[in-house]
């Protein structure tokens, strides 16, 4: 099963390596991992997406908790939560398809954030399947480059991950 796990970790050198090293050493799947400092500069927040049966996910959570640098973590999949992912897509936008690309961006409520005489760069935020849908909808030959952030997640309501 897919799980999305948020981790508050000391913002120290090597902290990211401890997490990625743990997944590599123990053979756990890791689909995406994003990390950035939080409003408290001594802490980083990590969001990682992983797959595994119940026993493996339990181990992943325990092993992450065991890392001395990990302050707190939450398996967002345990409760209602929101996921968002940012994607930037550079597409060919020349005479014939310039208008078509603009229309497609509008339909998906995406923003065109860079324009040249032959390309658009389109920014799109949403759940992963929405981003997938956009890529499917666009003519494959027109896509020059795709970059995705991997999902970020936050729980709904009062429950959350904080100190």
């Amino acid at each position, binding site marked *: 099963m897919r799980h999305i796990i948020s981790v508050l970790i*000391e913002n120290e050198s*090597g902290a990211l*390596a401890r997490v990625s*090293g743990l997944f590599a050493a123990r053979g756990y799947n890791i689909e995406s991992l994003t990390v950035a400092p939080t409003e408290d500069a001594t802490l980083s927040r990590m969001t990682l997406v992983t797959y595994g049966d119940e*026993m493996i996910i*339990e181990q992943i959570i325990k092993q992450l*908790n065991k890392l001395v640098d990990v302050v707190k973590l939450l398996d967002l999949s345990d409760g209602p939560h929101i996921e968002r992912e940012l994607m930037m897509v550079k597409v060919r936008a020349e005479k014939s398809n310039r208008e078509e690309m603009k229309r497609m961006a509008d339909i998906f409520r995406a923003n065109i954030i860079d324009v040249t005489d032959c390309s658009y760069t389109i920014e799109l935020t949403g759940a992963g399947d929405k981003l997938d849908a956009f890529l499917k909808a666009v003519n494959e030959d027109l896509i020059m480059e795709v970059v995705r952030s991997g999902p970020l997640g936050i729980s709904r309501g009062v429950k959350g991950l904080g100190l």
Partner: protein
Amino acid sequence: MELTGAEIVVQALKDEGVEFVWGYPGGAVLHIYDAIFQQKAVQHILVRHEQAATHAADGYARATGNVGVALVTSGPGATNAVTGIATAYMDSIPMVVITGQVPVPFIGSDAFQEVDITGITRPCVKHNFLVKRVEDIAETMAKAFYIAKTGRPGPVLVDIPKDVTDPSVRVPYAYPKKVSMRSYKPVEKGNVRQVRKAVDLMVKAQRPVIYTGGGVVLGDASDELRKLIKHTNFPVTNTLMGLGSVAASDKHFLGMLGMHGTYEANMAMHEADLIIAIGARFDDRVTGKLAQFCPNAKIVHVDVDPASISKNVRVDVPIVGQVKPVLKDMLKFLQERKTAPDAAALKEWWGRINAWRSVDCLNYANSDKVIKPQYAIETLHKVTRRRNFYLTSDVGQHQMFAAQFYPFEKPRRWINSGGLGTMGFGLPAAMGVQQAFPKASVACVTGEASIQMCIQELATCSQYDLPIKIVLLNNGYMGMVRQWQEFFYDKRYSHSYVDALPDFARLAETYGHVGMTIESPGDLEAAYKEAFSLKDRLVFMNVIIDPEENVYPMIEAGKGHHEMHMSPHLSAERELA
């Protein structure tokens, strides 16, 4: 008080109450060595290879319960220490390893004797630090010791660049009295409701077995365990790491379990309806095939490390906590109960266990012509039983024979590399034990292959007058490798014959020790007695044993507890499939 970085390192060791540091100097730690030279409180022991520094610190920690400390230089000094660090990690031994590092501005430049030792050791330490500012040394040292000894213990590495210990820079020194870390809060007492649930199962159990590991030794919970066993009349088995936590002479003790465990211990596990696992981690050498592990049992698991629980085997009642307070609670709740464990059921259960015992699975065919390794260990016990005795071991057949045939009565007396299985561990570990207990009798049982992995330490023993007794069970083979090749590779003994052996007795003599070669069973006891009477001398006993003796019983890797091979000597067809 203003101190240099190097002085802070040494002062921090003093403030932690450290008596000994095992180490080896080099460029990156010269400032620290200079600070060591100018004081007397912390005694430095110069080993001959950094692997031995970590093993000696480890042996000291296992025997005393204190944190072992090693100090090595950057680069090769640090990489040589890695095997010892991994050994301590696998067996959860509290240890602090200080490594020198190239100066901060050189880090990442492939400087002379530079390695990324925090990167290299990350998977085999409990935690590690790279200290980049002299102001951070004291706090980091305090954290390192705190992390090493609390919770599930383990090795912590502190990497200190040379410029951080610069003798021209002084900073105010104050050693933290207390360490508090928001990201590290080890548990203490177990959840009382969980303990009560375990007690419910214990009272109802018909066929219970207590299975305990190194956690009982590390958690100093041997007394509590013995009380629990006495109160419940439950049978108990130990892992390799747990030996000594219950007196081997206690009638409740079934011996070691697992791959080379006893018939009664493994059969009891297989037939049990309740397993109470305490400070044990369901290692593959213990469980055998997981699908067939304790098929009819509910499992209670007490462990200080939540990640050990339900890692390999799904448990019914997890109890996360220090073994000692949990066992105290468990005993208290049992005593409060009106209903005691089911005496009639236990009587029947003991009847079955005693029938398994009567197989006498460790029985072997002794010889008056050639020394059998089993006899060598039994005789060692006979000669040392009244002594204040510690036994360290290397890894292989001799280790299993020692575990099977030396009955340990107390915890922390059996010191061996269980998890990592590190050949070369025995002699340096014995140095650590002997240093801690100068008056105790310390022996190292080893093989001719293992001993050669750290044999240079005979020089260290000579320099520091360590009167260790080395019992080398010499069969000319890497015995355990040969045994597997005999069983599973049609006796193709690929590279397991250890050719070109030195004359060990003479080799020991060149290091200034006493050497003996013992070839006849009739000479063995007298030789041991003579060796142990030489109180101030290291005696190296080269005991020539039967070259092709095997360790029995044996469960093949991937088989169940009930599928043991018994010694062919016991009866040709005692193979219980």
